[in-house]
């Protein structure tokens, strides 16, 4: 008996070893590609900026200090970097607002698609993915064309005499929010749809049968059951929104910066790679903390309800 068991055991461990060996190349690539650049960024954040960009190999904490502090050029004292803090806050607030907005628009959209007959659902999903076919830059410029002072909306409103002079919509936080919500909407709709498609609509009927009004059915039955989709969609929207670069730089016009723009600035005109690196890592930390808090909250509620 033990002999047989032993052979099986040996067979198993050989099998496991073989699998590890087979996946080794992939693991190596992932390890190098994912952690390598991160390590470089981490190291750079502790070095001194070079005169024309790049870094000098002199250890310095300045990069990290400048993330939130400002050194006075004359007396060398430190004060809070208001500009950076306000960019941090704007980034987080705008990303949260984008997440909420896409959720508000995406939820009914996903529900609509999930309740269509099976044959037409694919068509609707296909329509949702169409924007992905066009380059993000071009889509962003299209939005710019619509909302700029001489653009479509202002032009039409002027023509019909609704306003006497163009309304400033471009280069505002509202413009960034609109642009980001538009860009990230499919990322919200698709996971929401995936969990709504699995929703058993007989449960909705059971809710109606048991005296729940349509609003109560939504709150007590549909939302708790599609929560995994809400969580996944929110994560998929919030993370890229926080690091968004193209949309805020075009629709915000370099005036309303977000974190992505600030980082780009340090690696470009700012010629302060250590600061850029430190900001990048800060962004990553914010994302990780936000995720942790969100998933833990959603998870604990989930275990209570479903």
């Amino acid at each position, binding site marked *: 008996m033990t002999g047989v068991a032993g052979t099986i055991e040996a067979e198993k461990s050989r099998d496991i070893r073989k699998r590890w060996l087979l996946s080794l190349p992939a693991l190596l690539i992932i390890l190098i590609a994912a952690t390598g650049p991160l390590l470089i960024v981490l190291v750079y954040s502790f070095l001194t900026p070079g005169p024309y960009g790049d870094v000098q190999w002199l250890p310095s904490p300045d990069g990290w200090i400048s993330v939130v502090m400002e050194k006075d050029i004359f007396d060398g004292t430190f004060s809070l970097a208001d500009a950076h803090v306000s960019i941090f806050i704007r980034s987080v607030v705008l990303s949260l607002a984008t997440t909420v907005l896409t959720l508000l628009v995406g939820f009914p959209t996903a529900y609509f698609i999930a309740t269509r007959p099976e044959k037409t659902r694919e068509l609707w999903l296909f329509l949702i993915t169409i924007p992905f076919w066009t380059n993000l830059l071009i889509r962003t410029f299209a939005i710019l064309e619509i909302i700029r002072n001489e653009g479509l909306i202002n032009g039409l409103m002027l023509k019909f005499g609704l306003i006497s002079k163009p309304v400033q919509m471009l280069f505002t936080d509202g413009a960034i929010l609109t642009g980001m919500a538009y860009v990230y909407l499919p990322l919200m709709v698709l996971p929401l749809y995936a969990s709504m498609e699995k929703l*058993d609509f*007989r*449960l909705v*009927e*059971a*809710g*109606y*049968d*048991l*005296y*729940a*009004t349509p609003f*109560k059915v939504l709150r*007590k*039955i549909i939302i*708790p*059951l599609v929560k995994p989709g809400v969580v996944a969609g929110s994560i998929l929207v919030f993370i890229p929104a926080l690091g968004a670069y193209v949309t805020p730089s075009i629709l915000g016009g370099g005036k309303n910066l977000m974190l992505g723009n600030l980082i780009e600035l340090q690696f470009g005109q700012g010629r302060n790679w250590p600061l850029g690196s430190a900001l990048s890592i800060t962004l990553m930390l914010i994302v990780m903390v936000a995720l942790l808090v969100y998933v833990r909250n959603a998870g604990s509620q989930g275990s209570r*309800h*479903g």
Partner: protein
Amino acid sequence: MAELNAVEIRHVSKIFGFGEFAFAAVDDTSVSIRQNEFFTLLGPSGCGKTTLLRLIAGFEYPTSGEIMLNGEDIAAMPPFKRPINTVFQSYALFPHMTVAENIGFGLTMLGKPKQEIRDRVDAMLKLVRMEALAGRRTSQISGGQQQRVALARALAPQPKVLLLDEPLSALDYKLRKDMQIELKRLQAETGITFIFVTHDQEEALTMSDRIAVMSSGKILQVGNPREIYDAPADRFVADFIGETNFLKGRISAMNGGIADVDTAVAGRISATVPLDFQASGEVTVVLRPEHATLCPPNQPAACQMTGTLENVVYFGTDTHYHVRLSDGETLFTLREQNKPLQSARFGQGDTVGIALEANAARVLRN
């Protein structure tokens, strides 16, 4: 004035689709369901029984007609305002709630006080004997237990009418038998009108106070189980409820409610005629399999028919025989109860006689 009917369906039609694809799932149907009745809608799948149930529940709205609940027209009322609850075929228990939360859901939605909900949920758990599992998730209990929770959930708000959509079809035979008795007990204890949908004629016969047999969106016959079985109104009902033999013949004489019918295969047999039916000429006579027995073919006095035994099917409690009659066409089914230590009297291929019991034959309304 007589007591109001619990539910009254008046000329209700439900048409799905448009134009040439229009299909009447329920076709100008009227039926009255009395207070505290165990009423069954029986029919094959696609006959419209579930649609009729969904119309009463409010998940569908009738294309035309009236649905009255205790004398009030509810045809246009949304389901969450109707004091009617449903036990779904798939149970449709909320997976994100515990057993107790499921049962209390209806009461919570009605805005009842917390204490009342707690007491009522406890009473319901007790009624369906599920006290021990109140805190479980619905995914952690067996099919039979889910069935009980679904029942308790639907009964908890004390509806005027309880609708049951083939609730036993997912259970295995033994559990189904137990639940049939359980359902009857619950109906007796709560005094609520039950409307039960099934395609299982045996289930319908054993449980119902009255049965409505449906086909193609129409109700063909309403009556108590005995009426439905013994006096089927037409060929469909006779064929659907139990096994039936149909013999064609011509009426030669009438004496009160009994007709002498000349048949090609069985000679002259006397058959009961339905009270309000003027029978004459060509008719169809129905004979239940249990009202006939096999007899040796060499006793022409006792046997009305002869034929060849084509098939013998042993069922445990009884044995079914399929006999090809002398006309070479009709296949006659008969059923004999098995007695202890009795071996088969006849084998496949034997020539056998068939004896009919007195008053067994009945003329069918065509």
